């Protein structure tokens, strides 16, 4: 269960609910927060998943024996890099 990247129209009066209530959902990604993107060296990663646990944005998912970054929602805070005991995570400039 995760908040979906659904698009919600708010252009017409009929788009607006009669009260402030709505299904969860959002329309924009958070990649604009960062200037460099995270990269995981799979040869160093031991799948401990600490980076997944400590990411404030939930932008890391468990992926088989390792992890994968959700680049739409990584803000580039680098907590993952700091918390990794194997030095498997580095950041590189995005083109």
């Amino acid at each position: 269960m995760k908040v979906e990247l659904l698009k919600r129209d708010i252009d017409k009066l009929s788009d607006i609910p009669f009260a402030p209530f709505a299904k969860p959902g959002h329309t924009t990604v958070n990649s604009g927060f960062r200037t460099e993107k995270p990269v995981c060296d799979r040869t160093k990663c031991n799948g401990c998943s600490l980076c997944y646990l400590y990411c404030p944005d939930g932008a890391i998912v468990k992926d088989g024996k390792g992890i994968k970054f959700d680049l739409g929602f990584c803000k580039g805070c680098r907590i993952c890099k700091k918390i990794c005991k194997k030095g498997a995570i580095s950041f590189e400039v995005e083109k």
Partner: protein
Amino acid sequence: MAVNVKTISDDELFFGHKACQGCGGALAVRIALKILGRRSVAVVPAGCMSAVGFNYPQLCFANNAIISTFAGTASMMTGIEAGLRALGKKDFQVVGIAGDGGTGDIGIQALSGAIERNDNVLYICYDNEAYMNTGTQKSTLTPFGARTTTTPVATNAHGNRSYKKNMFEIVAAHGIAYAATASVGYLPDFMKKVEKAMSIQGTKYLHVIAPCPTGWGVKTEDCIEVAKEVVDCGLWYLAEFENGEFTLNKDFKEFSSVENYIKKQGRFKHLSDEEIDLIRKSRDDKWKFINKYFNKVTK
């Protein structure tokens, strides 16, 4: 078996929010909701977590969530719990997620009322030690010496002059069913306490230190490290209150350096050696009390 990184749910119930990079509060909320699960109903007052996640049409809580008035978190929680019970609903968790200002200042009256009624709700205070959402103004949980926008550093004053209010002991004095302190620097301990709180009937209170790199003046990547250090140098303690007794979860033969903890934060940079001595003394006074009255966990 206690929940850990391998067994914790993969659900992301607080996702896509616009919190700052490295937000300790967002981490605390994300982890708590994973453990509390899909049938939790979150009440979030004015503050960082509501401001970053509840801007129509962008709504970032996958479970049921509602913003409360600033002063009304605990009373809204009470009403939701009573309403769900009256409607015959079962198997749900009502959780409040408020900041230090929303808890210790404007929200303390409603919280006190909820504890007195022993309403079956879980109240989580994510403590970033100031009114961060509005730009870092002083709250009653702002520690001594901290620079905030309402306790600036200038000739007349040298940052905040009062000491951090102890909400954990205040709720304990109510005879609350369960209360605990935590830190995002010791996440497994926090996770265990969330899980334990869920299993207890009555009002539960969790107070988790959640550093704000923006307001504290630390690098975003150092959020977890500084949350660990505040415990290691003794300025914050990990403990529980249950059945009328305090229990210390982590004891220290020797504390790490208060000065190191203080100096690496922008909000404390201006402090003199004398002021750091005062801070060290306040820590020592507190630990005299802890050593006298808290049960220690024996290995």
